[in-house]
């Protein structure tokens, strides 16, 4: 029997020439079925629901069909509508019900609402194309084909400790004219630059939000340049299932799904995983003054955390808080992630302000949050990386204590803070830095180093270059009188605020950048590099560039040549990490020899071998990793010795002795100018003096025993 003859695919109703029938309650959203489209939407408090159908781009709908009461099952309205043009269709809903914000209800039948489960949103199809502000329905739900030709592709499932993550912004990566590309700022342009990622040596990209958002949201003008200030980062979701059309060069043709999948497929073909930065803590609807786009009008009380008076809790710092531990919202989050994992082959997710996901509906922190538990044990997400930004804007800070089910990793904010303080020469940081290079066993004793995503910089805050060029933030261009952005930057300008011609200061800054890169790449755990830090990208001291769609955020491809020394250093260093499994242990060190090599898996040293300098004023230490213990002794590696001297004078480090068959070779020495600062992995320079090494002031040395 073919689908055409099935009794459940015959229309039973007709209105305005549109044929329809009772639908399937699951799945939610709009699904193509034989001869038509199945629409299904949930609302607990609505009294009535109407499906609104548009021809693509038309101002007014061509049909509105109220759901007959018999089409509702429980709180779900469903309907199959026949003979619709999948590609040209735009749809939305009107929801009727009480308007009583004090009781949490915001129903308004005059508004046409996006489907929370829409797979494509039309309306912001080209980045910063001026929208029609009078549009009766600005963010339009559309259908997506799900028949992409993936061939043999599947998520790469790289062990997390083997990843080198590159945190990047799709638009910022190629929008600068120096990228030399035709479709700058798009998925397709990113694809064209995959060879650069390969050359740098990263094997994972973490994309800042690519869910549909509205760059026009909060549109203001820069007091410095007069340019528009926009929602550039995109941490303000309009729809969780739809890729950002404005990031696709084919967005105006509605082919963003294909373009993004093509990018992912090609990244995978090059051995590069794709993590998405996902924002489930709030939406673009803001607080009680914000726009009604979808959730607020469909079922405000379900989707948002509300105070007893009906106001929005603001744990996200952006106006509202998604009610993630409401069972219906929880399922939506789960459905969403499953969709991205299965349909887009996404390798993992980084959850923005994830501490919110562990809050109860009244805002209190839960000890066993059902959403986090569901995600940890989900069969479809089972091989996906789950990474939490383990804090929120409501004061909940859970680095080291995030409910993890032996599954979740965390952005290790302590790594960032301790590495920065150690880097600038603060006292009393040696002990903490030792913990960080070991993968933070003080924070993750039971979970292993794989729980620790190490970073020194990320999109939020200074770039690495600015970290060593500015003591204070310089955010006037953001139009908030320099009041926005963090003040706890732990930065040091090396003697002058901002740009300078002073050669000594500039040499020190480059050295500090290299020192930081080494700290990141020789530490156990998962290193994350911010886009452009490998070439000294600057935001001129702005530490909160969320609204800057300009050169403050765009990667300048000329930097690869201007700062060729930094790029060369980063490239060799990343290669070194990938060549040396001893740097990528899946478990914590035991501080003993469990393979019979004669050396413990890790040993700490000071200016004297085998003796640490425990004085609080110490700013230097060294450690040695025994290659025979690499990956718990499963693979053989060289000995690796790293000396970090953040003291302002040179210090002589006595080197630990090697077995007779091995000799120390220098891989990196940041005290030296390029090209002597680093060697190609495998071409390390034999060391004439095998007993001592003079480590320069504020310098780091990496030796290989082979």
């Amino acid at each position, binding site marked *: 029997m073919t689908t055409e003859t099935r009794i459940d695919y015959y229309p039973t109703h007709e209105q305005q020439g549109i044929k329809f029938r009772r639908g399937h309650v699951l799945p939610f959203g709009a699904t193509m079925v034989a001869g038509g489209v199945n629409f299904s939407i949930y609302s607990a408090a609505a009294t009535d629901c109407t499906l609104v159908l548009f021809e693509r781009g038309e101002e007014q709908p061509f049909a509105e069909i109220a759901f007959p009461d018999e089409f509702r099952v429980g709180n779900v309205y469903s309907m199959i509508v026949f003979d619709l043009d999948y590609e040209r269709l735009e749809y939305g809903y009107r929801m009727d019900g009480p308007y009583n914000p004090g009781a949490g209800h915001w129903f308004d039948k005059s508004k046409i609402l996006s489907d929370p489960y829409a797979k494509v949103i039309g309306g912001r199809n080209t980045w910063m194309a001026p929208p029609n502000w009078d549009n009766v329905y600005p963010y339009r739900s559309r259908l997506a084909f799900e028949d992409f*030709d993936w061939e043999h592709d599947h998520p790469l499932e790289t062990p997390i400790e083997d990843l080198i993550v590159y945190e990047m912004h799709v638009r910022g990566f190629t929008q600068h004219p120096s990228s030399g590309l035709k479709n700058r700022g798009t998925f*397709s342009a990113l694809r064209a630059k995959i060879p650069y990622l390969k050359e740098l040596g990263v094997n994972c990209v973490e994309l800042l939000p690519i869910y549909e958002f509205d760059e026009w949201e909060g549109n203001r003008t820069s007091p410095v340049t007069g340019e528009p200030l926009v929602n550039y980062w995109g941490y303000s979701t309009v729809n969780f299932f739809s890729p950002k059309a404005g990031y696709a060069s084919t967005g105006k043709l509605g082919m963003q799904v*294909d373009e993004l999948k093509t990018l992912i497929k090609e990244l995978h073909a090059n051995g590069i995983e794709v993590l998405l930065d996902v924002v489930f803590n709030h939406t673009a609807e803001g607080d009680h003054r914000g726009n009604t786009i979808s959730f607020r009008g469909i079922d405000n009380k379900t989707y948002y955390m509300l105070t007893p008076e009906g106001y929005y809790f603001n744990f996200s710092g952006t106006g509202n808080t998604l009610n993630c531990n409401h069972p219906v919202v929880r399922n939506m989050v789960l459905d969403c992630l499953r969709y991205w994992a299965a349909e887009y082959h996404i390798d993992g997710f980084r959850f923005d302000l994830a501490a919110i996901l562990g809050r109860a509906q009244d805002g209190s922190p839960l000890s066993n949050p059902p959403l986090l538990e569901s995600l940890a044990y989900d069969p479809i997400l089972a091989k996906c990386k789950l990474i939490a930004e383990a804090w929120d804007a409501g004061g909940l800070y859970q680095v080291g204590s995030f409910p993890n089910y032996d599954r979740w990793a965390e952005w290790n904010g302590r790594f960032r803070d301790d590495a920065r303080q150690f880097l600038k020469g603060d006292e009393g940081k040696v002990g903490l830095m030792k913990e960080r290079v070991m993968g933070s066993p003080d924070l993750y004793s039971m979970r292993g180093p794989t729980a620790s995503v190490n970073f020194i910089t990320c999109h939020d805050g200074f770039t690495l270059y600015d970290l060593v060029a500015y003591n204070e933030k310089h955010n006037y261009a953001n139009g908030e009188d320099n009041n926005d952005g963090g003040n706890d930057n732990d930065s040091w300008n090396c003697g002058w605020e901002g740009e300078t011609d002073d050669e000594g200061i500039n040499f020190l800054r480059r050295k500090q950048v290299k020192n930081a890169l080494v700290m990141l790449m020789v530490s156990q755990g998962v290193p994350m590099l911010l886009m452009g830090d490998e070439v000294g990208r600057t935001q001129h001291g702005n530490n909160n560039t969320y609204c800057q769609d300009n050169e403050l955020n765009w990667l300048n491809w000329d930097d690869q040549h201007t700062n060729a020394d930094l790029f060369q250093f980063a490239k060799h260093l990343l290669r070194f990490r990938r060549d040396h499994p001893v740097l990528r242990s899946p478990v914590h060190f035991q501080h003993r020899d469990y393979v019979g090599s004669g050396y413990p898996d890790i040993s700490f040293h000071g200016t004297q071998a085998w003796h640490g300098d425990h004085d609080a004023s110490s700013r230097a230490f060294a450690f040695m990793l025994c290659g025979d213990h690499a990956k718990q002794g499963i693979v053989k590696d060289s000995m690796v010795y790293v000396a970090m001297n953040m003291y302002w004078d040179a210090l002589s480090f006595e080197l630990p002795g090697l077995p007779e068959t091995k000799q120390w070779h220098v891989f990196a020495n940041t005290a030296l100018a390029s090209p002597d600062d680093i060697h190609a992995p495998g071409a390390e320079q034999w060391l004439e003096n095998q007993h001592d090494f003079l480590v320069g002031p504020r310098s780091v040395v990496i030796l290989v025993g082979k």
Partner: protein
Amino acid sequence: MSLHIKAQVKKVAFITLEGEVDSLSAREFQKEIERLAVEGPDELVLLVEKLEFISSAGLRVLIFAKQKMGTHLAVYIVKAPESVVETLEKTGLHHSFNIVDHYV
């Protein structure tokens, strides 16, 4: 011993596309593909010099053609305008087809 000769002629299907392939015209395109598939061609040649636009649904017919006629099928897209080539590239389909200036 008697002589056995097996002679075979390559079967080539030609389709000319002009104007726009959107979701409605894609259905016509697909019907034509289905009709030709019955013949079991070895090669499918699409003459697209005057094709102005191909939508997502149109691209899907191309994939459908390969699936329907078998992966051995060689598909040639001849004289494609730049905009069409770009669409094929951005959506990753250029790997699956031979985009050529002339079909010989």
